[in-house]
């Protein structure tokens, strides 16, 4: 790590960010974005002053805007860069940025090859006015390709509190890809805070029977053999799925003054889910481990 990082635009922005966590998974659809959203909400709730950012670098399939109830919002330009969209309105402690905010129509496809994706990521890191952040959560697309290499290329030389979380489901096909992901983090010297096993069991709403829809236990076993911390298993929570899927922009978001304290609609609803309670422990471990990185 250079003692005097080069003064690139990215370095200037990242200087004000304490911790950066990249959420990875080899396989698609295992819940990276939902874990990113939960991580951001839980970090936000972890302290009354925590300032959190979420950057969605899944450029061809951005899900973060919908999950945080911010579909349809746009990004504004200011003299000091792009203004992120704040999920908590005026308190401005939960900042989000996604290519989804830049599209005119939600269903527009972003058909980009690597170099354009790389340029966009550089802009997200260098041009967004994040301000002072305690945590920046970065949601990534599946795989170990352009987006991941670009992130590391731009951030590793200028930031030394960079870490990652690997999300998997218990299925063999997902675990195989998670292993590839782990190999990637080792190849690029990216610390891994731990592995989260998502979709681990489903509780039947009629009879309460737990079905292992996508098998179970594989994430914990992998963490053990690979000597990586295991952060926890999250069962399929239909309340959470529904919340993250249907969270429509709330009229109250524009006028948060009417709300009590710092809570906002998505966070209020999230804290009522059973996942939020489980995730609180995950975040506790994450915050502890993170402080040892760098």
């Amino acid at each position, binding site marked *: 790590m250079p003692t005097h990082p080069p003064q690139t635009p990215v370095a200037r922005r990242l200087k004000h960010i304490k911790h950066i966590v990249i959420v990875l998974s080899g396989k698609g659809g295992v819940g990276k974005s939902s874990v990113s959203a939960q991580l951001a909400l839980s970090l936000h709730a972890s302290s009354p002053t925590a300032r959190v950012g979420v950057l969605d670098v899944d450029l*061809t*399939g951005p899900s973060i805007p919908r999950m945080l109830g911010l579909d349809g919002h746009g990004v504004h330009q200011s003299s000091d860069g792009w203004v992120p969209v704040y999920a908590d309105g005026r308190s401005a402690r939960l900042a989000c940025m996604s290519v989804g905010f830049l599209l005119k129509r939600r269903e527009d496809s972003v058909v980009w090859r690597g170099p354009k994706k790389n340029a966009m990521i550089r802009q997200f890191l260098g041009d967004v006015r994040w301000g002072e952040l305690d945590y920046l959560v970065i949601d990534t697309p599946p795989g*170990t*390709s352009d987006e991941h290499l670009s992130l590391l290329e731009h951030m590793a030389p200028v930031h030394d509190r960079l870490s990652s979380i690997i999300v998997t489901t218990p*299925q063999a096909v997902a675990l195989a890809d998670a292993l*590839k992901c782990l190999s990637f983090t080792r190849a690029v*010297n990216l610390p891994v805070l731990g592995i989260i096993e998502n979709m681990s069991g489903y509780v039947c*709403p009629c009879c309460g*029977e737990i079905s292992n829809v996508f098998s179970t236990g594989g994430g914990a076993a992998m963490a053990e053999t690979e000597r990586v911390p295991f952060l926890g298993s999250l069962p399929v929570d*239909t309340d959470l799925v529904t919340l993250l899927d249907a969270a429509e922009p709330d009229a109250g978001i524009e006028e948060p003054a009417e709300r009590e304290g710092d809570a906002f609609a998505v966070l209020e609803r999230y804290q009522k889910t059973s996942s939020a309670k489980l995730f609180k422990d995950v975040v506790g471990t994450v915050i502890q481990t993170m402080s040892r990185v760098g």
Partner: protein
Amino acid sequence: MLATQTAVPIPDPLSRPSNAPEHCPGVESEFAGKSSACEGCANQEICASSTPKGPDPSLPLIRERMSNVKRKILVLSGKGGVGKSTFTAQLGWAFAADEDVQTGIMDVDICGPSIPTILGIANEQVHASRSGWSPVYVQDNLSAMSVGFMLPSARDAVMWRGPKKNGLIAQFLKDVDWGVLDYLVVDTPPGTSDEHLSIAQLLKDSGIDGAVVVTTPQEVALQDVRREIDFCRKVGIRVLGVVENMAGFVCPNCKGESQIFKPSTGGAKRLAEDMSLELLGSVPLDPRIGKSADYGVSFLDEYPDSPATTAYLSIIRRLKEILGDA
């Protein structure tokens, strides 16, 4: 008569110059010699001076190879984890149930190849011969090609940027000795990026018969699927229809049906209506589907009585009708 006269060496996807810096963009990359990681690299000059690429020389070779393939079908979805590879495999097995029909499966998910595991051939290797790379045979009339067959171990990550991925996809089309095929089913990674653009461009001359778009019922997936359909329209690929996976879950204990992924915005049915596409069918979530994929066995053969099997088979029948092969 085939594209290659001497054996084309099987690439080692992990190869980089031995003295490459940590974030080497790869010698094939558009950034070769120009990326920040290249500074100070001994190969920088050689990489940077490579001549700009003209019209793709592999196109005529691909056209020749693909002239032996009757139907080329893409399996797409904007979203990951919705069951593209599983559907691809079921399609392959269902086509191959007729022993006179030759089917090939090509996995262009370079960073997360699942096809070898799902087809139960994860430990197989690709061999090079005079007529090209031999695909791996699941049975006499069902073959597959995937980057997974080229990696020394399943844990190895292919950390490639676009250009190298595109190069391998072109090789899959021109250097693989597919033989005469009735169907070539192409499994793709999620998104609308390099792999998708490349396959669309490389197969343009040979003609793509169409794409099957796979989704799950929740809006987060549908959003990405709409983008994928928009992509198909932009590049002129016909969408044969939409398949909805993980629609409803039947509890093995009480047989009660519940929705794990609720169709909060009307599911695939509404999406198909809105975009004037045909909904080929909905497949319920059966935990045995995922298990079959993990063990590499055909779900259709293992559980012929499952409602999911009935749904798959009816979708595949309808697909054949649409293609005029019924």
